[in-house]
């Protein structure tokens, strides 16, 4: 079985062409972008104002299974804000209990594809609750700051 190394004659084997062809195949078969990623990006781009900061989903190993499983705690962070949400599945809907750190009475919105937007305001402890949120492609927006310096932080569009 010398299909990979040890070809006779000391010639480099597998040669450049074979390796590049392999890599090309891997890009499509082993490591393609997730099938719904384009759709999720397109959903994120349907925001009215695109001048936003996208928070990162902080995944701990123990949460590896949370994505898409419809329940559990998820943490998103951006430079100076952490958004934690706890999902509770109730029938076909979700209840989202959230917590902003640092706390502030910020306006919070949740967008769900094909279901529009629900909004609320966090209390002074940074807590908020969004009830009866349909499941699906979801994004949470937090509007920070005052009139003079308004910023919007969004979570990545995820399927909850």
């Amino acid at each position, binding site marked *: *079985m*010398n*299909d*990979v*190394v*040890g070809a006779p004659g000391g010639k*480099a*084997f*597998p040669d*450049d062409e074979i*390796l*590049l062809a*392999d*890599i*090309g*195949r*891997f*890009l499509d078969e*082993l*490591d*393609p*972008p*997730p099938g719904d*990623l*384009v759709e*999720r*990006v*397109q959903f*994120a*781009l*349907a*925001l009215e104002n*695109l*001048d*936003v900061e*996208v928070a*990162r*989903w902080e*995944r701990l*190993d123990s949460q590896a299974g949370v*994505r898409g499983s419809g329940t559990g705690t998820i943490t998103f*962070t*951006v*430079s100076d804000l952490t958004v934690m949400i706890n999902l509770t599945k109730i029938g076909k809907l979700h209840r989202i209990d959230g917590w902003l750190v640092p706390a502030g009475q910020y306006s919070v919105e949740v967008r769900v594809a094909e279901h529009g937007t629900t909004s609320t305001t966090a209390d002074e402890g940074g807590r908020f609750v969004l009830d009866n949120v349909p499941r699906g492609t979801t994004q949470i927006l937090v509007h920070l700051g005052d009139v003079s310096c308004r910023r919007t932080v*969004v979570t*990545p*569009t995820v399927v909850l």
Partner: protein
Amino acid sequence: MTDVQTAEVDPPWEGLTGAELHAACMHAARAGDRQAMDRLVAELTPLVWHVARANGLDRTVAEDVVQTVWLALFSQLDKLRDPKALAAWLITTTRREATHPYGRRTQPVPLSDEVAESMPSMNPAPEDEAVRADRDRRVWRAFVRLPDRCQELLRLTVLAGRAEYQLVADALRMPRGSVGPTRGRCLDQMRDLLASEGGSR
């Protein structure tokens, strides 16, 4: 008549490809045309994805970075006047996002082995297939052990060789299908990794 109603009218980029398609879409997107934005995203998300993956991000973090890069592009599209600069902009911005403190590498090494491990089950198969899957697994492992710089260069080389990604070749001043000296060294390194891996014979 709004745009929404005129679905039977082909958008101005219909039938265009490559640089012309991107130029037409960028022009329309600057005027706020969502369809044009969607088209660019559909065309070029694989490019952004592979640059993110090549820069050490696991698949889930790469997903977030892809979204960040696209939002960044469309929120400052006015600054990018030259459509020819699009690929270079996407590549540079993705790299920067990938090395951003928040782009932390959750699981530095094993992430891609995981992909390799899942291969046999993806290809449940007779013996020939199993032999091929085993070979693929070894080649993939060698690939993901390359330095990020090499992984990125090789991924981009492969993409640049495809007609729809001519813009990558242009951005990298890379004649299509060619393998330059740096790429050659990366491939040599990949062969060394393959040879040194146990059970490669």
